[in-house]
C-alpha cells in the first residue's frame, strides 16, 4: 500500500436537481495511510457529500454529477471499468445513523463476507466474525446471543457492529460519517475508543462537526467550508497554529491540543480547555 492510499484530484460534486448546487468544489487532498483524518466544517459545508463521493455512494441519489477524480492506491475510482461494488469493498462506509441490517448479530458481521465469498468454511466464517467483533470490543457483550437480531443491541453497540461489518471485508480505507452524533455520551465514548485503537491499522476518514472530537481522535484535519478545503494540516498545527483567517474564526483562535498520545509536546494545558462538547472527560478512563 502506498503512503497515501486515497487522494482526490480536483474533485467536484454538483447536485443538478431543481437548482444547481456545487457542494464540493475542486478538492485535491490526500488521506495518509494508517492515520485518522477528520473532515470538519459547519453543517451543510459538503462534508458528507465529499465523503460519499470517495466510494461512489452518492450514486444512489439522482441528479449528481462528478468532475475530477478519486485515486485509490493510484487507480482511478471514476474513470475505470472496475464496478462500483468492488470499489466500495475496498473503501468501506459507516453511516451517521447506527444501522443494523435486518439479520442477526452474527449475520450483520458476516454480511459482506458472504457476499464476496471471503471465507473457506463455516468454521472460518465463525472465526472471522469473532475476530472482527473482538476488534471493535463487542465480542464479550454479544458472544452469548449472536443469533439475536442486530437491532436489539443498544445504539452504541450497533455503531460498533457497523464498524465490525465494514472491517470484515478488509477495506483499505474506512469512511465514517459523523458516527457518534446520534449517540449518547457513553456510547459515543465507546465508539471513539474503538476508532482510536483501529487508527494505527487502518486508514480512517471521519467526518465530524465536533472540534472536540477532532482534537481527541484526529492525526490529520481537513477544514471544509462551503465545499472548499480551507486548510488541512496535522492536528497539532491545525489547532495550535491555524494559518487561515477562516480557520481561526471557526475554531475560535489557536487552541492547545491536549491528548495522551500528544503529551510528549510542550503543551500541558488542563484537559478542560481541550474542548467543551462530547465525552472528552471519559478519554482518560480505561
Amino acid at each position, binding site marked *: 500500500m502506498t503512503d497515501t492510499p486515497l487522494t482526490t484530484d480536483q474533485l467536484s460534486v454538483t447536485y443538478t436537481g431543481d437548482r444547481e448546487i456545487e457542494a464540493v468544489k475542486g478538492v485535491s487532498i490526500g488521506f495518509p495511510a494508517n492515520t485518522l483524518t477528520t473532515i470538519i466544517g459547519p453543517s451543510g459545508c459538503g462534508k458528507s457529500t465529499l465523503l460519499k463521493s470517495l466510494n461512489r455512494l452518492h450514486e444512489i441519489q439522482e441528479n449528481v454529477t462528478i468532475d475530477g477524480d478519486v485515486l485509490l492506491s493510484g487507480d482511478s475510482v471514476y474513470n475505470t471499468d472496475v464496478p462500483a461494488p468492488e470499489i466500495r469493498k475496498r473503501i468501506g462506509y459507516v453511516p451517521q445513523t447506527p*444501522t443494523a*441490517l435486518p439479520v442477526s448479530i452474527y449475520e450483520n458481521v458476516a454480511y459482506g463476507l458472504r457476499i464476496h465469498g471471503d471465507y473457506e468454511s463455516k468454521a472460518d466464517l465463525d472465526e472471522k466474525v469473532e475476530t472482527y467483533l473482538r476488534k471493535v470490543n463487542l465480542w464479550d457483550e454479544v458472544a452469548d446471543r449472536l443469533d439475536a437480531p442486530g437491532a436489539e443491541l443498544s445504539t452504541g453497540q450497533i455503531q460498533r457492529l457497523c464498524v465490525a461489518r465494514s472491517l470484515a471485508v478488509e477495506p483499505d480505507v474506512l469512511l465514517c460519517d459523523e458516527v457518534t452524533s446520534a449517540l449518547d455520551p457513553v456510547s459515543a465514548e465507546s465508539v471513539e475508543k474503538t476508532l482510536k485503537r483501529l487508527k494505527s491499522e487502518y486508514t480512517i476518514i471521519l467526518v465530524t462537526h465536533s472540534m472536540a472530537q477532532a482534537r481527541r481522535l484526529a492525526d490529520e484535519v481537513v477544514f471544509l467550508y462551503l465545499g472548499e478545503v480551507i486548510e488541512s494540516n496535522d492536528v497539532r498545527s491545525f489547532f495550535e497554529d491555524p494559518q487561515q483567517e477562516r480557520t481561526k474564526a471557526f475554531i475560535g483562535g489557536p487552541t492547545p491540543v491536549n491528548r495522551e498520545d500528544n503529551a510528549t509536546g510542550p503543551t500541558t494545558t488542563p484537559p478542560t480547555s481541550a474542548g467543551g462538547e462530547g465525552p472528552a472527560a471519559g478519554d482518560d478512563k480505561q
Partner: protein
Amino acid sequence: MTTDTDSLQNRAQSSRLGRRLLAERYSSYWLTGAGYLAIALFAGITLLLFYRSLPILSEYPLSSMLTSANWDPAANNFGFLPAIVGTIYVTALSMLMGVPIALGAAIYIAEYAEGRTKTLVAALIDVLAAIPSVIFGLVALIVVVPVIGRYVAPVFSENTVGVGIFTVSLVIAIVVTPFMTSLSVESLESLPDELRETSLGVGATKFETIRSVLLRAAGPGIFSAILLGFGRVFGATIVPALLIGGQTQIPNSIFSTGQTLPTLIVNDFGELMSLPLTQSALIFVGLMLVIVVWLFNFGAMLVQQRLKRRWQYQ
C-alpha cells in the same frame, strides 16, 4: 404555597380552561365510543350470522355439508364442497399470478425507476388500484373471455367458451395487483437510505441489497400488502359473479366453470330466499367467509409479530 394553590384553583375555574377540559372529556367519550362500536359491529354481525345459520346446522351435520359435492337447494341437498374448492382455486391462482408481479413492480418503482418515469408509473398504478372492480369484470367479458376461449384454453386441450376459474383468477389478479403494488412501494420507500448505504458500502450490488436487506426490512409491510390483497381476492364477488359461469360443480380443470363462496350467495339468494333452509344455508356461507377471514388475520398478526422482531433494523 397557599397563593400557588389559589392561583391554580383560579386557573381551573377560568372559563377558557373549562371549555378546553370539557372538549377533552367529550372527545375521549366520542373516540372510545367509536372504538367500541367497531367491536360491537363485528360481534353483532358474527352473532347474527351464527343465529341465522342455526336452522341448517341443526338439520344436517356440518361434516357432511362441507364434504358433499351435491348442491341442489330445491331438493334439500346442501353440499358446500364445490364452492369451497372453487374459492380455493381462485384465491390460490390469483395470488400465484398477482404476488410475483406486484413484488416486481413495487421493487422497480421504489428502487429502479427514476424521475418522470417513476412519477408516471406510480401514478398509473394508483389509478388502476382505484378503478371499481366491476369495470375490470366488464372489460374482461368483452376481451379476456373470448381470448381465453379461442386461444388460451385450446393450447391446454380444453374446450370452453372462456368463462371459468382461470378467467376469474386472471382478472382478480389484475384487480388486486395494483393495490398490493402500491402498498409494497410505500413499505420500501419508507426504509431509511442508511440501509441501502450500509449494504452498498460493504460492496453489495443493488440486487443483493434488495434481496438480502430491503425485502426483509420492508417484509412486514409487504406481508400486510399481500394479506390485504388476499382478503380482497377471497371476498371478491362481482368479478367471479360475472365470469365464473355459475355452475355449482367441483371444477375438473382450471378452465372449467364453477362457483365460489361469495358467488354462491349472490347467485342463489334472490330466487331461493323464500326457502327458509336455503336462506339459512347461504347465511352459513357468509359465516364461513367471516370466520376464515378472521382466522387468517389472526394468524397473519402472529406471523407479522415474529417477522417484525426477526427482521427489525436500526
